[in-house]
């Protein structure tokens, strides 16, 4: 069983393997052909994701989370914590793979070997969908994760009821510096956006943190203008933005979109070329949009001729 990911997504592949209770090795090659991933299945359940949830990555993640000492004479961690970390890394890796539209997969049947994980495919998909829904809800509450948490007043911090904070709460508090927004804190602690968003809201509820509104964001305003069909207004906002922050990838992308809305495909191509330069990871998407804009531009020119 094999094929290109642009024809059959990994979601369908995993569902087929899960429902068929298959044993074997699924190799997935994404946009970067030098780093293939291997998902091992036993009776249709994911038992290993390598190398992203392999022993080395688990150790690295535990150290990054200050749960494991890097010294030679290290203090080991509880087996449950290690297992939980492996599961988190596996889920994150699969979530990334599910978004791949380029590359290929190859599944080979193999014996029913056990692995360090045991996750049903349906559970993976439900969890990922659940996370996505929570992210959308929290984005609305936290200014698209641009809201900035700050510590509450000393009196409030010290006067509330008793606290039950876990290591992630402490790491989030450690990352709070009055400048980072929720999205940046999630990146700093290397945890899912929705998980960090929920924790920040809880810490706000216990009067440890307070939220400050996101600073004026031209990209947000421009998006609203585009959605309202006010393309020239959006272009004005975005041109102002990219003239001061030349590497704002989202602003370049939106500027192209606004120019297309206004029917100026030549200027859209210029904006998206800048976007492609600023965000090489999405170069293929930018190239596709540029090609589309060029086609439209030529079509209009032909029509005028």
């Amino acid at each position, binding site marked *: 069983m094999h094929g290109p990911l642009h024809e059959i997504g990994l979601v369908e592949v995993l569902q087929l393997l899960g429902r068929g209770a298959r044993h074997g090795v699924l190799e997935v090659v994404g946009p970067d052909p030098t780093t293939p991933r291997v998902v091992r299945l036993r009776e249709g359940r994911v038992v290993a994701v390598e190398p992203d949830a392999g022993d080395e990555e688990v150790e690295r993640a535990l150290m990054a989370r200050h749960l494991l000492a890097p010294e030679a*004479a290290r203090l080991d*961690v509880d087996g449950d914590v290690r297992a939980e970390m492996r599961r988190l890394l596996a889920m994150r890796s699969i979530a990334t793979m599910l978004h791949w539209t380029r590359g290929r997969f190859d599944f080979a049947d193999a014996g029913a070997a056990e692995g360090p994980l045991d996750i049903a495919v349906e559970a993976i998909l439900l969890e990922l969908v659940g996370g996505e829904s929570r992210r959308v809800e929290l984005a609305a509450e936290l200014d698209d994760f641009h809201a900035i948490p700050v*510590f509450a007043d000393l009196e409030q*911090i010290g006067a509330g009821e*008793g606290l039950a904070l876990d290591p992630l709460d402490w790491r989030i508090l*450690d990352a709070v510096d009055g400048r980072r927004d929720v999205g940046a804190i999630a990146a700093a602690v290397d945890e899912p956006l929705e998980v960090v968003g929920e924790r920040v809201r809880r810490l706000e509820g216990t009067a440890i943190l307070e939220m400050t509104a996101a600073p004026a964001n031209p990209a947000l305003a421009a998006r609203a203008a585009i959605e309202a069909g006010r393309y020239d207004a959006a272009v004005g906002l975005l041109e102002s933005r990219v003239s001061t922050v030349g590497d704002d990838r989202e602003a370049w992308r939106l500027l192209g979109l606004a120019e297309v809305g206004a029917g100026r495909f030549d200027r859209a191509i210029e904006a998206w070329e800048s976007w492609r330069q600023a965000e090489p990871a999405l170069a293929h998407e930018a190239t596709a949009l540029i090609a589309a804009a060029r086609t439209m531009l030529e079509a209009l020119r032909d029509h005028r001729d």
Partner: protein
Amino acid sequence: MVTPEGPEAARVAALRRRLGAASPAMLTNFAWFAARRGVHSLALEAAREAVAHPGAPRAAWHALERLVTGRNDGLLLVAAGTGPQTPMESNAASSLAAAVAAHREGALAVAETCYRAAAALPPLEAIVADGLGVLHEQRHERDAADAAWARALEHGAPSAAHNHALALLRRGQRAAARAALEGATAASPANAALWFLRGYAALLDGDAEGAVVALERAIVLEPHLARAHFTLGLAHDRLGHATDALNATRRGLLLSPWYLPQVWLLTPTLGTAPVELPAGSDDESGLGSTDAVLLALGRSLLETGHLGESLAVFDQVLVRDPAQPAALFHRGVVLAKLRRYDEALADWEEVGRTDPEGTLGSMSRRHARSARQLAALFTVRQG
């Protein structure tokens, strides 16, 4: 509670107040946070409070060990999934590891606290007693050290015989040390550390032949024991076996650039090999330092005609101690053999000045007279 100044410290202190009577895990995590925020005093206070609980997690001991030595980095969080670590066994075992770590860093007060916590587990009692013996000896509390070692020896601590004998040697009780080591090597004939110490004690006691026998036995048992090779080099040097001395010292240098003959052996985990804690050397025998080895090496090289190498070795000693009489004297000999009489003369005259009453001083004066004559000869020829 100590309340440090500054807005950050005030915020951290407010959080601590909010936690109230927290669990050891929560206190450990708070210590991590306070240390990250640079509020060392609150971090240390929380870590101390955490380890005072019977179910303190290993991370709490780890935090205390680092904080007490002035470090704010490398602390650990206690994972959410980790239940209270109350089993005495794991707690005591981690206390022993923390004790040895603190001991190696010279944090003796912390080490002592951790050793006493580890003593709660009977299988660790002997190892703990041995560690406390070393600790008391370092503090010159000899009665307490001897009492601890008596317990350690009674319960069969693996390194107690070694450490106790080393203490006797360092106290100048060479005969007692040698007797103890004879008994210990008879009881544990496969223990290289004991055979090494037996050889070293013999050499200190002027018995170079006995030293060679014991040291060769240590090397057979543990071929990579650098201090045994170095000491064997010194013993051969004493016996005038220049080639054997040279070979042994060169083997030692291949294994380590440092000669550390006196090390305490501490056991951090039940059933594992001990770790070494350099004991330093305050004996007056001249056998306790890297320079002693280098001098022996230089002499052996000189005896075997390797003049260039020998010169380099004496130079190395004199870089650290420009007035070292033996190095000056022997470098003078090398220089004279190389017909660099003026330089030889300068070295010997220096020895005559710095050690006028000693054997080397009088020999140097004789050598200097000859060198002066030869130098004059060269001057005449050149003229």
